[in-house]
Structures are given as structure tokens and as C-alpha cells.
């Protein structure tokens, strides 16, 4: 009975897995197809002949290396700055008593509800005044202001034993030393969780780059893929699929390498990056 149930459950889960995988498989297969096959037998599953020419062709046409560099350093700077400043504010809320702490924290929580679409027009006007439109700072600076980061890290800091802090204070440590030497090392799982969420949000971000960037050399990976797709998509699926694969596969490999940590982080925070 339980054996039969196991088989049934595995069958359901495998079906779900196949549906999940199919679009990726289709992307890979299409990326090896040529235009003539696409026109003559659009419903063929397998490429015939298999041709890898789509990949060098796309590399010739779009600056994908530059887009990778842009996305990478924007995400890196955003993650580092968010973790550092977020942990600072979280420490103040968790451990330093000051008047107005409660209401101020409430303000942080409330602003989490404000969608990006509400602030985008004022941000655009403001960044235009500062001559920051069409620059990466327009993406990095607003992303660092992250109330969710403060909220999440505060939870982790509250779980650090106060005795550790007291012991350090008796030894003459000030607030900054305590934060740097005791708090940060003790909230590593929280920093990992937040780091993964912020990285994914930055790496996959589309709305802000779409509005703030115009110069192709500044494009991030999603913007590059989108602009190629809207100019060339539908004409030659092979090229679009090859470009998609080049943007998607490295991320999937990175995820597979870090899957244990990433899945546990996402499960514990209970919240995705979007």
C-alpha cells in the first residue's frame, strides 16, 4: 500500500518536473536549430542538422560580455552596500535603546508596502536632475534603500545572545567594535539569506533598467535579452534561444552549485526577491 503510494507520488512529482524542465529543454534544442529548419519544419523537436553556429553569431552581434560585467558588478555593489548598511540599521533597532525607535521601525515596515511603480516617476525626475539617468548609479542607489533588509536582519540580530555583547563591553569595546566583531560574525546565515535575495532581485531586475538606461553598452543581462528579442525575436528563434541560453545557463549552474544554501535560505526567509 505505502509502496504503491510512493510510486504514485513519484509519478506526479516527475510529471511536474518534466513540465518545469520542458521550456529549458526547448530553449536548448531551439538554440541549435538553423533558420531553414525553422521555416521548413517548424514543429520538429530535434535540430537537424545540429549547428552551434547560433552561439558565435549572437556573440558577434551583441555585447554580452559587457552586459555580464554590468550585471555582475551592479549586483555585487548592491549586495555589499545593502548588507552592510542594512545590518547597521538593524543593529540600532535591535540593540540600541533610543527614543522613537518603535515608530521609526514602523515607518521602515510601512514603506515596504510602497510598490516601485509609485516611486518610479519621482525617482526618474530626481535622477534626471542629478544627471544620473542612463548611469548605473540610477540602479544601485535606490536599490540600497531596502527596509526589508533592515527587518530581516533585525530578526537575526535579536537572536544573538546579549551576554556576548555585555562581555565585550566589560572588556571596553564600543558599539562599533561590538557590531563589527560580535554581531556580524554571528548573523552569517542571515547575511547569506539576504545576500541571495538581493542578488537575485538585482540580477533579474528589469523595470528600473528599462526606464533608466538608454545606452546599449550600459545594458544589464535582462535588458540586453529583451532588446534583442524585441528587435530580432520571431525572425530567427535560433539566435534568440542561443542568447537566452547564454544568459540562463550560467545562473542555473551557479544555483546547482549552491542549491543547498540557496534553498534553505529561501525556505527560512519565506520570501522571494520579487
Amino acid at each position, binding site marked *: 500500500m505505502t509502496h504503491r503510494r510512493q510510486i504514485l507520488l513519484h509519478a506526479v*512529482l516527475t510529471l511536474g518536473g518534466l513540465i518545469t524542465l520542458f521550456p529549458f529543454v526547448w530553449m536548448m534544442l531551439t538554440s541549435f536549430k538553423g533558420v531553414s529548419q525553422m521555416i521548413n519544419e517548424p514543429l520538429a523537436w530535434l535540430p537537424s542538422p545540429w549547428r552551434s553556429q547560433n552561439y558565435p553569431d549572437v556573440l558577434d552581434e551583441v555585447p554580452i560580455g559587457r552586459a555580464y560585467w554590468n550585471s555582475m558588478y551592479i549586483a555585487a555593489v548592491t549586495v555589499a552596500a545593502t548588507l552592510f548598511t542594512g545590518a547597521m540599521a538593524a543593529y540600532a533597532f535591535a540593540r540600541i535603546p533610543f527614543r522613537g525607535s518603535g515608530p521609526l521601525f514602523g515607518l521602515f515596515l510601512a514603506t515596504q508596502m510602497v510598490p516601485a511603480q509609485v516611486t518610479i516617476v519621482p*525617482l526618474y525626475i530626481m535622477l534626471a536632475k542629478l544627471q544620473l539617468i542612463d548611469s548605473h548609479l540610477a540602479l544601485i542607489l535606490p536599490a540600497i534603500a531596502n527596509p526589508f533588509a533592515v527587518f530581516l536582519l533585525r530578526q537575526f540580530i535579536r537572536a544573538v545572545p546579549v551576554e556576548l555583547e555585555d562581555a565585550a563591553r566589560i572588556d571596553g569595546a564600543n558599539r*562599533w567594535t561590538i557590531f563589527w566583531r560580535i554581531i556580524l560574525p554571528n548573523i552569517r546565515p542571515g547575511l547569506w539569506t539576504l545576500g541571495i535575495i538581493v542578488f537575485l532581485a538585482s540580477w533579474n531586475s528589469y523595470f528600473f533598467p528599462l526606464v533608466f538606461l538608454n545606452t546599449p553598452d550600459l545594458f544589464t543581462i535582462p535588458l540586453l535579452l529583451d532588446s534583442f528579442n524585441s528587435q530580432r525575436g520571431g525572425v530567427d528563434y535560433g539566435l534568440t534561444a542561443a542568447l537566452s541560453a547564454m544568459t540562463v545557463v550560467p545562473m542555473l549552474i551557479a544555483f546547482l552549485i549552491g542549491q543547498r544554501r540557496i534553498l534553505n535560505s529561501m525556505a527560512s526567509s519565506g520570501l522571494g526577491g520579487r
Partner: protein
Amino acid sequence: MSAEPLWRRRDRRWAVVFLAPQLLGLLVFLVGPLGFAIVLSFMEWDGLGDTTWVGLDNFRALLTDPGFGRAVWNTVKIGLITVPGGLVLALLLALALHGVRGRTAYRVIYFLPVVTSSVAVSVIWQMILGGGSDGILNGTVQDLFGVTLPSWLEDPTWVVPAIAVVTIWSSLGLNVVIFLAGLATIPANLIEAARIDGAGPWQTLRSVILPLLSPTVFFTLVVSVISSFQAFDLIYVLVNPDHNEGAQTIVYKVYQQGFREFRFGLSSAAALILLVLTLVVTAVQFKAQKRFVHYES
């Protein structure tokens, strides 16, 4: 009267130091723009010329515009399919996963779409859903069963389920992982006790598992509703709502009014309507949770 202790004065200074960067960011990039958006929503401005105070005209224009009404309805419709559909599917898969040995591989596979950018997700699904009878989905179904499926991305009626399916596909893994973590916190002896008391699997699910899981479900519900109302990337890239008004949502209107027509006032007003809608729906959920969500005391 004793003077304030030194450490207290120092602490207040430390609080300012620690809070400064995020607080500054909050004021400049969130609170300030929100206030600015509220002011803008009462004005007419293209960003270059003079500003004109128009009172409630922007809101009146939007609320009487059939196009905007359709956008509100589309937004709600997409949410009504995506949210319950996505949550129920995720719950079923999580329950199935919870019951089998060797779940790591499934967990990893289901999560792959979550780490894929929504632009890539849309581009890939465009290849599957698009192309009419030459498309892989419609063409194959036509060949095998002789059934002609609708043009998912061009037909204003069928684009909504298409968006819902792709959205669910892309976010399912996240909810499965969260539900699985919630299921792992349910003590096995409670389920065992229910079984000994003669409860069947269905009854155990209804009376033990679901109540204990309800805080997780509630949290996921709130987040799903908010992200469904605010969805932009996936729809915009998948469908191109410029040519299909079935896919025009409130967020699309915000973008279109703001950055195509440069009517900043109208765009801000639309965004604020979205914010109010989000707040109301979230508040209703929090009100309703008292009757459905079971918190352990």
C-alpha cells in the same frame, strides 16, 4: 536630579550613526518620492514645461476611462487565476514531496524557474506559446488531436490564462520550498495521533495539517497577491501589451502614461490607485485571517 549617564548620551549618538545610511536612503528614495508622487497626482506635468494644478482631475479621468477600468479588471483577473491556482498547486506538490523519500532532486528542479530572470522566462515561453499553427504547442496539438488552440499571446481573451500559466510556472518552486519548510515544522506525533484516532488521510489533512500550515499559507497568500498586482516584467516582455489590450494592467498604464506619453501626473495617479488597491486587499486579508489562520499559542 542626576545627570544623564554618559553611556546613554553616547548610545543616542551611536543610534544616529548606525541608522544614518538606511534612514537617508529611506527618505530620499522611498518616502520623498512617495510624497512627490502624491503631489504629482494632483498636477499635470510633462517633466519639462510648467506644472498645472488640476485637483482631482487625474483621478476622475482615470476612473471614468474605460481603458483604465479594463486595466483594473485585467489586473484583478490575472490575480484571481494566478494566486489561488499557484498556491493550490504548490500546496499539492509540497504535500506530495513531503510524502516521498529522495526529495532533493525535485526541490532543485522546481526551483530552476525561480532563479531564471522573468525576461528570459518570457522570451522562452514566447517561443512555446507564440507562432500560431507553426508554434510548437499549438502546432503539435493541431497535428495530434486536430484541435485548433487560440493564439495565446494575440487574443485579448486567452492572453490572461497564458499569463497566469507562465506566472505560476515561474513562481511555483518558491512556494513549494516555503510550504515544504512549513510542513517540516509539523510534529510527526500529531499526525500519528490523528491516525491512531482513526482519521483518514483527507481528514488528517483538513483537521491537522492545514490548520498548522495556515500561518505559512497566509503569509504566502499576502505576498502572492501583492506581487500579482505589481507584476510587470513577465507580462510586458511575454505579450507586448501595446498590441493586446487584454494584457494591459494597472502597472502597464503607469508605465505607458509616464514613460511613453510623459503625463507624469496621470501616471502617478494610476500608481496611487494601485497602491490603495493593494493596501485595501491586504487589509481585508489580515481581517479575514482571524477566521482561517491558526496560530499556536
